[in-house]
């Protein structure tokens, strides 16, 4: 279930690539206990509840699938969980949504097969405030004051991140200048919003908008008359589209992801194979998500002894138990499911040990043709934080 024709089509292509690559690798080694994996892709368009539910029904009813594994569909508000729970199959997605915790915990027996292959978006908010505090406490950055301004997108994902950031500020000695400003996608009145924020003179400005196009438009507006503050952009700024639009002006902005590719031997090797197969313009950081989850599913199913189709919940309960029991060191880091949330536990946001959680990676954007600087957390960081150019100029001036 991938949004091949909507605003997230670029990501959807990478999700498809990741699935193709994982299925080929598994099938070359004779599949799951001798049975080859067969893939079916359904387009979820703009990721609305009706589109995602329709896709799930079609996959289950028409193709009799044993598992649904995809990237994300963030507009369905978990509506598809009902169809999947009724069928009793395995579902692994990367929606990065806190509502997954709530739905699963509301009836663990019914939603036994629903897994989120990455941490909830909530961790972006909390983790970002810890990241800022870490910069401050290690002396890498001396904030002019303790004020933080937050602009939120209007999707649940963006609102939750903005709320989580806002609620963590006080505990770490930061002051929120005002409640997060919620803006809609493709907003036009950036001048007004930025002037309002400028009046509060924050040391940090964070925006949690989802789409890379929205983030790029905001960023260009910000750079017309930069505020003297650190700038954080949500995950969408990791995309090539963002870099293509903002070019050199992106340099210095901070961006994070709770699922990405560490630059260790495993991550680099995957990245190389992925771009060799899908081209230099492909994005292994996105493709790695379903790639990782399909591999984990195959291992769990092999240990469980078989896979189950619709109506074979008892078999799939065994597979689900194996997904929970067997921690998997994937190309993206450690996939370890929380037993109650059935979502991946993040490092260092929720665990101290990097071998027990998926790394929440923080980057600083460089030039359009340069690799982003991975600045936190240890032991994954390979670069140092640098003051963004607009702050450097401000201090010189």
């Amino acid at each position, binding site marked *: 279930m991938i949004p091949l024709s909507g605003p997230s089509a670029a990501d959807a292509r990478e999700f498809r690539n990741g699935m193709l690559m994982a299925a080929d690798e598994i099938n070359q080694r004779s599949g799951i206990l001798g049975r080859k994996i067969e893939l079916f892709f359904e387009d979820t368009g703009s990721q609305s509840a009706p589109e995602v539910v329709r896709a799930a029904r079609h996959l289950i009813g028409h193709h009799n699938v044993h598992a649904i594994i995809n990237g994300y569909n963030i507009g369905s508000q978990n*509506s598809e969980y009902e169809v999947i729970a009724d069928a009793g199959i395995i579902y692994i997605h990367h929606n990065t949504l*806190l509502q997954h915790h709530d739905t699963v915990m509301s009836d663990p027996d019914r939603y036994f097969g629903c897994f989120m292959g990455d941490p909830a978006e909530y961790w972006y908010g909390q983790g970002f405030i810890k990241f800022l505090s870490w910069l*401050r406490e290690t002396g890498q950055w001396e904030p002019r004051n*303790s004020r933080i301004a937050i602009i939120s997108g*209007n999707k*649940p994902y963006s609102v939750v991140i903005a709320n989580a950031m806002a609620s963590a500020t006080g*505990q770490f000695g930061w002051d929120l200048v005002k409640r997060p400003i919620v803006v809609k996608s493709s907003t036009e009145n950036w001048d007004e919003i930025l002037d309002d924020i400028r009046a509060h003179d924050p040391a940090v400005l964070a925006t949690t908008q989802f789409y890379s196009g929205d983030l790029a438009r905001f960023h260009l507006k910000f750079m017309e008359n930069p505020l003297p503050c650190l700038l954080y952009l949500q995950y969408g700024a990791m995309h090539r589209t963002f870099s293509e639009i903002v070019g050199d002006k992106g340099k210095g902005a901070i961006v994070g992801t709770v699922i990405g590719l560490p630059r260790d031997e495993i991550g680099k090797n995957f990245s190389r194979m992925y771009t060799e197969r899908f081209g230099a313009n492909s994005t292994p950081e996105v493709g790695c998500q379903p790639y990782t989850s399909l591999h984990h599913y195959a291992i769990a199913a092999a240990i469980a002894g078989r896979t189950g189709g619709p109506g074979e919940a008892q078999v799939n309960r065994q597979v689900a138990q194996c997904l929970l029991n067997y921690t998997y060191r994937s190309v993206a880091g450690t996939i370890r499911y929380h037993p109650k949330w059935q979502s991946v536990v993040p490092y260092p*946001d929720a665990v101290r040990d990097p071998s027990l959680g998926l790394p929440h990676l923080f980057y600083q954007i460089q030039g359009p043709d340069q690799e982003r600087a991975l600045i936190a957390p240890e032991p994954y960081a390979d670069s140092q934080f640098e003051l963004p150019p607009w702050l450097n100029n401000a201090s010189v001036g």
Partner: protein
Amino acid sequence: MEPASALAKGVEALDFGVAVWSNTGALQFCNKAFSKRFGKASPESLAGFSREEFLGEILRCSDLIVTTPAQTWIEQQIANFENNERNRLLFSDGSIHQLRHTPMPGGGTITVLSDFTEIIRSERSLEKERDKSAESERVKSRFLRAANHDLRQPLASLKILIYNCIEAQSDEEREQLLHNMDVSVSIMEDLLGALLNIGQLDAGRVEPKISTFQVSMILERMQIQFEHLATEKGLDFRVMPSNVALSSDRALLERIVSNFVANAVRYTDTGRVLVGCRRKGRNLRIQVTDTGPGIPETHYEDIFKEFFRISTKHSYRKHSLGLGLNIAKRMADVLDHRISVTSTPGKGSTFSIDVPIGSVWHSDMGEPDINERVGGEFSGLTALVIEDDDILRDALVSLLERWGMTVIVLDRYDNLQPSIADLENEPDLIITDYRLQGAVQGTDLVIEINDTLEKPCPAIVVTADTNPDLIKSIRQQGFPVLIKPVSPPSLRVTMHNLLYEPELVPEISGRTDDG
């Protein structure tokens, strides 16, 4: 059998040792139990030994445990023989035996060696129970003294805050004071918890719970806890802000720092009390400096002793039990944090504690479960629910609360305006049944409520009536409609759109077009 022979056989069969010594002190006879206990297979091998030879032999050959030098031990044993005194011997298998010497008529001595292991163990266990009971009594009275001592601070603070709150001139001021009262109450709760720990401290059962947290959390609580008291005394009270992550037990550390600050405020009559931090290598030193009477260097160690008071001249000291610093020191010992004091009599003192700096990444957020109640998109918002059916209403309220919302239930529809005006929070969203008791329509109520509110509140109408005309008419009034039973995902989608993306709600965007 001859009586003598029968007696000898009987003695041989005894399960305790018997030995007979001549009046010259030579071993004339011993039974098997006696020789065996000292590692000799047959009694004959000991026959004829003098007391000194016997004692030397058993020291060499048996598994006797002797802690004094050999010669001293032998001399003690001989003295016991001569004075007919009982004594106990400890063996390496853990058994304890008693030697009892009794003079015989006509000369000589009979020695009985009995196993006392069980008797001694029972005695010891009784002693332990007795000590435990005495300790428990002592702990109880210490606890009561400490509770009295430590709860006074926040209680006094609370009294002042309540008075100020009554006198407050503005809502803003009252809100701030209420917040501070809330903090004071939570400080009292924490103190009681910590005091319970003191009992455990006495019993050696305090296990620190180390976590990572910001020092600012402790500093803020010091500010709130002591600012009013210090200001009332006319002191300049300052807490310097600091943003460093610490690795310690937050409750215990707070007790220690709070004790330093309480003492500083209590004993300083004029001048200032300053709480600040500075980095010292891998530690953060939290310092409390005052301009109080100071402490002579000769008392630097004494002040941390239990019930120690420098003098009772100062009126506050008369009421001090001298427990606070002792508790602080013992807690610091448990945490392995160093406490220090420097002072100049007549000028003031500085008490400090060195706390290991932690990694901010490991900061404990105090949330065992991450769910929508904690951080969902509706968390912190208020919903007004109007539904006659108890079961449906309870289910809806519980769902909304699970999503982190505050829920207000409206169950009377007459006299609506005052009940809306009395609400603590204006609702962010209304969810109403369409057909309510008394032929009241939910849509009419929403319109009436919105006339009362400062800003109109979006509403969702739920109904079990699937009549298309009815649904159409409700939608035309600008309300999205959900058909009962309402599924959580569809409610969530509608709520999200109404609150964050109203352009996606056709009932609203349609109305806008019409307008």
